[in-house]
């Protein structure tokens, strides 16, 4: 018979392993940041990069910032892109992992729930017609993409509510709304007379981090940070949701409320990211699975780990995307899938334990 103290020891050992997994992911992320900041089509390397960053981050030390060329390359080109990559990867992965957990479905992503198609339609509308529901300053396309994400969520939410707000109704309503917006998106591209505008739409839909500026980071990072904190606070509820709605109620958790809160958080995080970057898929679907393979399904650890994996995945892909055929670059979405799929399949086949579904 296993005694109680042995049990607790076993449990604590498992906990340590989970912390170690999260720690390793973030170490990998930091290494990727260092690699990414020191590589590029232009010359500055790691030493220059560190000098520039240190002089900016710690201005009171009055360090020598290096040449103004280095400063421009590192501070206004490479670093914003890296930071946006981290925020986007982290936020998308957090959105993916919570929605998969709450809807009890390992195939859920922002594509399935209609958010991406809606963002695409919103952006296309703004690009082709030059009109937007909401345009703050120069952010015509971004504002419209964001608003349409919210419209999609409200639609999915209201349709699902009619049928009792269960995980099945949310997914089906999401699929329907997604198809609606992708049909409208195709229509806009089809009827547009301007080839230039259609090209711009296609380019936007592929997504990328090349538009990164400190300004965009300033707007989306607080949103993503707040959303992630609330998500982590929901961990227990999400864990319990995965045992079914009846069990959730009997354990004192209101499944509809958890579903509503998570949907809202997921949409806000995804919308505030893809409005700036264009549609970046795959990360939100796969990062949670990789994290689950590393440390299991307890969302208290799974959400932080997914966040790290997502950031690492997107940053690595973007670094490869801009280096592989420098000075031009590949769309980041293409690289994410080309790198991510083989890695994911390797994990899927080599791991003995079933991690989902």
């Amino acid at each position: 018979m296993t005694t109680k103290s042995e049990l607790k020891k076993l449990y604590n050992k498992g906990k340590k392993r989970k912390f170690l997994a999260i720690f390793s992911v973030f170490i990998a992320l930091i290494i990727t940041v260092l690699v990414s900041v020191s590589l590029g089509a232009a010359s500055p390397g790691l030493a220059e990069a560190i000098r520039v960053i240190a002089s900016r981050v710690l201005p009171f030390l009055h360090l020598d910032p290096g040449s103004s060329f280095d400063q421009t390359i590192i501070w206004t080109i490479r670093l914003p892109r890296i930071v946006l990559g981290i925020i986007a990867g982290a936020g998308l992965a957090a959105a993916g992992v919570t929605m998969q957990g709450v809807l009890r479905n390992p195939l859920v992503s922002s594509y399935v729930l209609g958010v991406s198609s809606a963002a695409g339609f919103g952006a296309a509308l703004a690009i082709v017609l030059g009109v937007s529901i909401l345009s703050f300053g120069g952010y015509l396309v971004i504002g419209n993409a964001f608003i349409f994400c919210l419209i999609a969520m409200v639609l999915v939410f209201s349709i699902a509510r009619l049928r009792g707000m269960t995980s099945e109704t949310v997914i089906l309503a999401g699929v329907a709304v997604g198809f609606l917006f992708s049909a409208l998106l195709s229509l806009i591209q089809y009827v547009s007379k301007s080839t230039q505008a259609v090209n711009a739409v296609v380019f936007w839909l592929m997504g990328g981090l090349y538009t990164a500026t400190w300004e965009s980071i300033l707007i989306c990072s607080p949103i993503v940070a707040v959303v992630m904190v609330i998500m982590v606070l929901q961990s227990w509820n999400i864990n319990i949701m995965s045992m079914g709605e009846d069990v959730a109620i009997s354990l004192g958790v209101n499944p509809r409320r958890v579903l509503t809160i998570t949907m809202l958080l997921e949409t806000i995080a995804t919308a505030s990211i893809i409005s700036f970057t264009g549609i970046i898929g795959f990360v939100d679907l796969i990062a949670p699975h990789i994290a689950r393979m590393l440390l299991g399904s307890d969302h208290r650890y799974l959400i932080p780990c997914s966040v790290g994996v997502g950031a690492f995945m997107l940053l690595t892909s973007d670094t490869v995307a801009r280096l592989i055929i420098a000075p031009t670059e590949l769309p980041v979405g293409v690289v994410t899938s080309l790198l991510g799929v083989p890695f994911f399949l390797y994990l899927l086949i080599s791991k003995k334990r079933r991690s989902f579904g």
Partner: protein
Amino acid sequence: MKLTINKLSFNYAATPVLKDIELEVGLGEMLSIVGPNGSGKSTLLKCINRILKTKQNTVLIDGKDASKLNLKELSKLMGYVPQTSRSTFPFTVFDVVLMGRKPYIHWSLSERDNEIVAEMLDFLGIGKLAMRHYDELSGGEQQKVIIARALAQQPQILLLDEPTSSLDIKHQLEILCILKSLSKTNHCSIILAMHDLNLASRFSDRILMLKQGCIFAVGPPDAVLTEENIESVYGIKAHVTNSVLGRPQVTPLISDLNEVRNVKIQPEIETKQR
């Protein structure tokens, strides 16, 4: 705790499932709900636990209306063990049982939460499975895990939906003995939906027999499990004897497919016109 059910009715859309159920379950009592498929056993359990919502003042705990309690307060008083419980994503046995502590934790776990989980695993004899994955266990082991989870809630009323239906004879007896000892030593009131009449007979203090959503009979096993009652509820001729354990033992007298197919259950004549 005393559970009182007062004129409880429930409809799925327009189909009435439960009609005017009246029942009292006392401290430490073990009550089995029996009846044919679709007679409303599971629905009654879900109504008691407010997974399905019923009118005010239909479920009373120690005289207090359960619909006035919020879900969290209720989950500290009542545990529910579903027929089967699957998890989409893999959790260890320890983590599944830990979920039973949810009503008591906000974010971080106390030493006490861990202690209670370890205690429950020990109590159900599944300590060795603690770090195994719930999904990889056999049906009997899974059943013990979800009972342990419900017990980790430290409930005073425990509801179980056919806890033995997918288990072999040893596991059936093991689980029912565990429940019996809970009701006797911890004074936990236990309500089970059961299909096996002989197991219900052997372990229950009282049996509630449902027919088409109404109470047909309620009382001690020898008063409820009679040949007449079984025939009018299930439509099956049965022989009821007294077992070596002094409880009624039901032997159905049908051994032929055509005989079973020809069974006709007399619909209840609606005497209670309102």
